[in-house]
Structures are given as C-alpha cells and as structure tokens.
C-alpha cells in the first residue's frame, strides 16, 4: 500500500491536532 498520498497526510494532520484537542479537553476535565 502506498501511503505517500495527499489523503494520508491530511488525515495525519487531523489525527495529530485531534489528539492535541483531546489533551486540552482532558486537562479541562482534570481542572474541574
């Protein structure tokens, strides 16, 4: 499978920022 495609890296961007978003959410929960 060729992963060197635009779709793969667009999905990787969404995954990376999604995880960072979830970390913020987790920290907010921890604060409460």
């Amino acid at each position, binding site marked *: 499978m060729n*992963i*060197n*495609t*635009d779709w*793969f*890296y*667009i999905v*990787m*961007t*969404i995954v*990376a*920022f999604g*995880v*960072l*978003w979830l*970390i*913020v959410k987790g*920290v*907010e929960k*921890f*604060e409460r």
Partner: protein
Amino acid sequence: MSSATAGWLQAGLLVAALAACYIPLGNYLARIFTSDRDWKVERFLYKLMGIDRSADQKWSIYVRSILAFSAVSVLFLYLLQRIQDHLMLAEGMTNVPPDTAWNTATSFVTNTNWQNYAGESTMGYVVQMTGLTVQQFMSAAVGLIVAIAMIRGFMRSRTDKLGNFYVDLTRASIRLLLPIAIVGGIVLIASGSIENLHSYATYTTLSGAHQTIPGGPVGSMEVIKDLGNNGGGFFNTNSAHPFENPNAFTNWFEIFLLLLIPFATPRAFGKMVKDNRQGYALVAVMAIIWLLAIGGISFFEAHYGIGGATAAHLAHGATEGVETRFGTSGCSLFAASTTVTSTGAVNCFHDSLTPFGGGIALFDIALGEIAPGGIGAGMYGILILAVVTVFVGGLMVGRTPEYLGKKIRPVEMKYAALYFLTLPVVILTAAGLSIGTHAGQAAIFNPGPHGLTEVVYAFASMANNNGSAFAGLGSAAIWYQTLGGFVMLFGRFAPEIFALGLAGSLARQGRTPESVGTLDTRTPLFVGMVVGVVLVLVGLTYFPALALGPFAEGLH
C-alpha cells in the same frame, strides 16, 4: 590573531551588544503587550478578521486558538507545496512529494525548520516567500505570545483570562518582528546577502564544466530565520552558504539576531511583574548555561585530542566539516548559540563536531531550549523550571512554596511535571522505535555510538523545535518524514498546552503576601538553584542516551 582569540572577541562583543539591548528591547516588549492602544493597521486587521480586541480568552480558549490557527497553517503550507508547479516563480521546481511537503509544513509551523530537502533545488520563490517565510514570522510570534500569556498568569489574580490570542499575535508580528526584520534584513543585504528574483543562471567554468548559480529572496528570509529562532535556510548548507552568510560580520550579526529577543524577554517579564530583579535572575541563569555551552564546544573543537580525532590533531583543530571562512571558533560559537536557542541554523556540520563537542550540542537541545531558548519558548520553559526550583526549595525548608506571590500547590506541580515529561517521552519513544524497527534502522548510516547519537539528536532536535541536523541519518525516508512530523507537532504544542494550563491555574489564584519564609527568587542563591535543577533534571533524563552515544564514542 589566533582563532581562539577571535572566537572569544566575538563572544565578548555579543555579550556587550546583548547587554546594551536588554533594557530597551525588554521594556519595549513589555509595552507591546500591556498597552491598551491599538495601531491603525491593527484596528484595520481586527475589523477585517472580525476580532473583538477587548475579548480576553481563558487559557483553554487561548490554546485552542493556537491549535486551530496552526492546523490551518499546516494544511495551507502543505497545499502550497503540492501545487508549486502551478505557481509563479517556481523556477522549474516540480510539486513537492506528499511526505516531504507534510514534514516541511509541520516543521515550519512548529518553529522547528527541520529540512528534509535542499531549498535551492526543491522550493520555488513563491513557496519560499509566501509559505516558509510567512510561517517563520507566525510560528515565532506564537511562541512569544505563549510566554506572554504565561507571564500574565503571574501578573493577574482571581481571573481565568490570559489575553486574546489574535490581538497578541498581531501585535507580536507588527510591532516587534516586522520592524526588526526590516532593519536586520537591510543590514544583511548591505553586507552581501543576496536579494533578488532572478532565474538561476548556468555558466561554463574554466575547466568546461557547467555551474548553476542560484538567486532568490535570501536576505529577507535569512533575517527572520535567525531573529525568529527558526533556522530554516534558503539553501541546503544554511548559514555556511556565502549567499546567506557572506562574511565574518554577517556571521556575528546572525548569532546576535538569534539571541536578541530570547535574551531580552526576561526583562519584559521583570517589567510586567513589576520587579526587574526577577528578570535579572532568570537572564543570569540563561547566560551561565549559554557561556558554559560556548566554552565547552570551543574547548573540545580546539583540543581535538580529547575527542579522539587524530586527523584534527594534525590540522590544529577539528576542521573537518567546518566552513573555512569562519574556522572552528566561529563554528563553536554558532553551534552553541543555535542549540541553546531553538534556532537550528548551522554554519558548520554538526556531525563533524568532536564526540564531546557534539555531545554538548545534543545536551543543549535536551535542556529544552531554555538558555535563552527559542523566542518565547525559552521564557515559558525557564519559568516552569523556576516553579519547580521554588517547589524543591520549599520542600527543603518545609514551607509552602510561593513564586511571585502565587502558591505552588500540587495542581501547579502536576502541570510542571506533565510539561517536563512530555519531551523525553516523545524523543525517547521515537528514537527507540527507530532503533528497534527495520524502517528506522535502514536509514541509519553510521554504526555504533555515532549512529545512536544521530538518531537521538534528530528526534531531540525535532521535538524541541530546534531543527538542526546531526546528519548521517536518512531522514528523508518516509518513516522519519512521518514520525518526525508527529514528533514536531507534539513536541511543540503539548508542552504549550501544559504551560498555558499552569498559567490559567496561577491566574485564578489570589496573591499571597511575602513573608519571612518566602524564598527570595532574586538572589544568586536562587540562580544557582535553577541552574542545578536544570542540569540535574536533564542529566538524569538523558544520561543513558548520552552515555551510550557521544560519551561512549569520545571515550572509545
């Protein structure tokens, strides 16, 4: 004049120039972010973008704004590289392949500027100017304003607001980075750095061979490359290229630029918390570590025998991989300054440093870029270290630790611990995966300790947003392109999340008046304690990797 004398003279001039700028630039920085008055151009931009400049954000909204802005920036920069073929001034460059485009996009948005490509043969002028250079401004501004938001956490009481991300970003770009970049760019261009939009020219040499001479808007990119602690050069050889860094003066000036804002930020901190001595204490910590790094690398590059390099012994210095115009002292000064800040620009080949010299460069990066660190990143990094030091000091004397009138409670320490654990986890996990998998191993070109140093250096450089390469590693392989992109994103933004979380927690607190039991954080004792905490924390975390890499190679 001997090379060593020239090196120390340059370092002395740097100290004098940075000391002269410390107060005026630091005061100006503080004024930028405390003034209520907007410039006309700022009001226009707020109107254009629909921003309510008076709407302060709580820490989680502030950090979400950073993430949203950065995600859009990554996708835009990726797209720009992928359609390069259709853009003006492409200079015959084809579209950048997806893996390189993604690695480059994450690299420039995170202020890392790790480059898996040769600029002069991969990127056209439009991508260099409107993609890479724009991100060199924006990513630097983002780092700085995270530090400003963190300082507001100490300044403010009983609020959950840390400022407005878009207002801070606009002010950092327009009032600070652009004016200095314009003046610095003119100085560099006047000193010989090229600036044009000429097509590449091919000439026939005396021996009949063909040589291509590149052109490009180099000076305008060079200045923000250094000023914004970015490090991504127009050319593959970075600041060793004569069009980027033409002479001894520009070499000194580039080092000055990359240290300028990080060393002035503690003054802004002191001004904003209304106690200038707090700024002096932190800048002293930064200066001590920076000078130790210069002394260490200079010593090992000049006293080559200790590093074990016999060829260097004959050449009176470890000159292999060193740009002859700058010599080993110019290389050592640049290498130390580029690795203690998060710049990553290079004027010599770090892979050619002696084992201990290279080990110090790696240690500098592992420090977490706090001496003086990347623009903004160094400030929030050292503030968190100061918090840890106050906590350790409090444990020693059995009192509740306080810093600048804020109690350092378990919740603040949890944020600090998360901040410090993030980078080692990211770096050592990525290095371990690369060493333990076929895909990772296939791109390691050197066996033994040197190969290990190359892998650890690469991920330490990426995660700490430094961007300098040790070389000897095939980082253009798809494994390193993809894993490296993740390492840069998490190495940049996860610590920023915890730093801003800590700032939010501090801002919500009231102010505790100083008492006889409060540790004075303006004294040489505190400076020594912070230096100690930095060295112990980093030393313990990375000692196994350092021992198996540069130490083993140097002592072999």
